[in-house]
């Protein structure tokens, strides 16, 4: 039991380190625990340049198969990510491409693949994912966006939501309902299409935290050629699962502030004239959050060990997100409590403000990418093989389901 790379990993890490040392500093920005607002056009331009450089060196989407420009290695992808994380590089606008790519690889024609995969890899075209809807979040199969076939063209109407980077994306993957009289999971059909098509309208969604990373996308009589359908008519659900399978791969990093930031704060503050770090109540909380943080960190190491041994990781990503999001909320609120009446202030040093910012960001973290409740279901059903919830929506025609008319 140790923390060392195996020889192949060590060699790859050395290669990556030296490549990054040469190329990354030019792109690295001043780092910050906290991202307060959106990003500008310079950031996008820099990100595209960086992605192209990575693609040329074979570091863009390392987990992709070699024939598409990757290296076919989950473990190498992790090693690269660990090393890249040591630099504060421009934001990754190409993350959706990383999931959409494998879907195209499985379902698109050779011609389509050679048209779209290379610019996806190089960041020349940004993709977005039109899945969730106002009425279908956790229950993705409940989407209502209609696709109706007219000749060899589908006419699409509906509203999508929680779409990252839609405001800048050139292309999109999309799931629609082609037949509401079929049972829920059987009436879905999947496409890719050009976001610059007539009838596409994008609005950024402002969140309580002040951020607006997500968009709403309205589709009004958007016309999509049948040749851009991925999978058969009615197979949309299983194509979705292909995309989501690739998404789950991303195990969340620990959020900050965490136990360590509370130690720093408690050393600085005083309670009744003594350093707050001597206060037993504060110490207990720090201890409780530390075992979560350390547990999460070493759980990741266990996952990496499994990857390194060629095994498939389990539900670790669900565990980590579940605990990290709630911890962020709790640590944020607790840090504010320690600051006392000053805890309400926004425009103060980042050392103090980080707790309020965490408190305001955390509700989103508990929801986006799988709510706490969905994650517990995943853990219970996939790891512990407990029975699924009673399903009342599997067999009825979609348009006869309770709530589906809303």
């Amino acid at each position, binding site marked *: 039991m140790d923390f060392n790379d195996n020889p192949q990993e060590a060699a790859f890490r050395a290669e990556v380190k030296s490549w990054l040392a040469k190329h990354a500093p030019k792109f690295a920005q001043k780092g910050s625990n906290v991202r307060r607002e959106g990003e500008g056009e310079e950031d996008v331009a820099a990100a595209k340049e960086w992605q192209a450089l990575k693609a040329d060196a074979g570091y863009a989407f390392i987990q992709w198969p070699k024939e598409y420009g990757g290296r076919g290695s989950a473990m190498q992808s992790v090693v690269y990510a660990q090393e890249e994380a040591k630099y504060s590089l421009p934001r990754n606008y190409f993350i959706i491409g990383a999931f959409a790519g494998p879907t195209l690889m499985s379902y698109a024609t050779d011609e389509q693949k050679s048209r779209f995969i290379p610019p996806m890899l190089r960041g020349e075209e940004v993709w977005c994912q039109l899945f969730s809807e106002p009425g279908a*979040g956790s229950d993705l199969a*409940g989407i209502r966006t209609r696709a109706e076939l007219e000749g060899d063209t589908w006419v699409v109407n509906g509203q999508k939501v929680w779409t990252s980077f839609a405001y800048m994306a050139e292309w999109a993957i999309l799931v629609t309902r082609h037949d509401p009289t079929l049972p829920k999971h059987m009436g879905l059909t999947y496409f890719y299409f050009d976001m610059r098509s007539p009838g596409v309208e994008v609005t950024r969604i402002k969140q309580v935290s002040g951020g607006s990373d997500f968009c709403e996308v309205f589709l009004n009589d958007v016309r999509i050629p049948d040749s851009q359908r991925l999978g058969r008519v009615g197979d949309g659900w299983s194509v979705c699962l292909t995309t989501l399978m690739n998404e789950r791969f991303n195990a969340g990093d620990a959020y900050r502030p965490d136990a360590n930031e509370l130690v720093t704060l408690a050393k600085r503050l005083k309670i009744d004239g003594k350093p707050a770090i001597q206060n037993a109540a504060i110490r207990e909380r720090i201890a409780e959050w530390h075992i979560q943080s350390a547990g999460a960190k070493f759980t990741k190491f266990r996952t990496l060990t499994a990857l390194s041994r060629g095994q498939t990781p389990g539900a670790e990503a669900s565990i980590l997100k579940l605990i990290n999001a709630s911890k962020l909320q709790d640590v944020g609120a607790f840090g504010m409590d320690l600051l006392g009446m000053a805890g309400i202030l926004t425009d103060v040093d980042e050392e103090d403000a980080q707790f309020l910012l965490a408190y305001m960001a955390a509700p989103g973290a508990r929801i986006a990418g799988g709510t706490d409740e969905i994650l517990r279901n995943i853990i219970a059903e996939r790891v512990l093989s407990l029975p699924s*919830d009673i399903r009342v929506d599997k067999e009825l025609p979609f348009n006869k389901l309770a709530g589906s008319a809303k």
Partner: protein
Amino acid sequence: MNFDFSEEQKELRDHARRYLKDRCPWTVVRGVLEGAAPYSGDLWAGVAENGWTATALPEAYGGIGLGYVDLCVIAEELGRVTAPIPFSSTVYLAAEALLLSGDEANQSDYLPKIAAGEIIGTFALAEGAGALTMDNIQTQFANNRLTGTKIAVPDGDTATFAVVLAQSSRGPSWVLVDLTKGGVTREAVKTVDPTRSHAKLTFDGAQAEPLGGPGKGWELTQCLFDRAAVLFAFEQLGGATSAMEMARNYAIERYAFGRAIGSFQAIKHRLADMFVKNELARSNCYFAAWALSTNAPELPLAAASARVAASDAYHFASKENIQIHGGMGFTWEADCQFHYRRSRLLGLNLGGAPEWKDRLVTALEKGAAA
């Protein structure tokens, strides 16, 4: 056993609820969140017109002769709608400070104007991060001049006067400052809840007068906070109840997997937990209302218990309300944020939960010793 509001108090509550439903829908709160005004002038005027600012004040000073339990009733209703007005600073803090001070001249000057809703007052305590102690008060009072800085003062930007805790040669003392006069700089500050305005106050030899006796400032502040904690707790209770109702209504309306999400135990049991916390907070609040209205020796324990219970209940209800609403609940357009912001603000305005848990046990130790 008669441990409930009276019929008259229930009528007052129903009236207040109807009035606020009409005059303080979420759009009014949102107006203050997004706009430049520090508070809703219309609502503040209406509240004064209703006599709510005069509820517990003595009739001699323009009060309307109701008691503190009635003021608790009003507080709960204001808390339900997260009313964006300088009520707590003026009524729970400034007016109560004047009453505690025993200073009849200042009472005669200020209380009638507070009763009439003509002025805003506040109380200034915090000077930096962490809890203030008797020994680390930096603001100095000498020769009727005040020098120092107070931060996160509720409605400090709009108040006419403030009661300020300052260090003096006789020890910690209260002083009264006219904030509209020279030597006072006020700077509005951003907080977790922009629907209630706060300011940093800088005093540079500002004219001030002693209030409540030299060297009495620390004990007076503890008394004031015990009393204010009860009224804050009722605002928190109202907020917690409203957040629970929002979540409950959404859980019935929203469908996923072909069923109302409120039929999933993950959701319904969390709502049950909210209800339990809210009911326990309500019961602690009622006891505190009784203790406040009767000046009972149990007030310190009752006030701390009400505050700790109501802070916890509101925190839980406001965060789980967003969670139950899902992604939509986290958007700026949704109204869930008002409770999420306000629960944190009220939970910190009189000092955080750790301080109040400590006060609670101090009171409990005394009780156990007696």
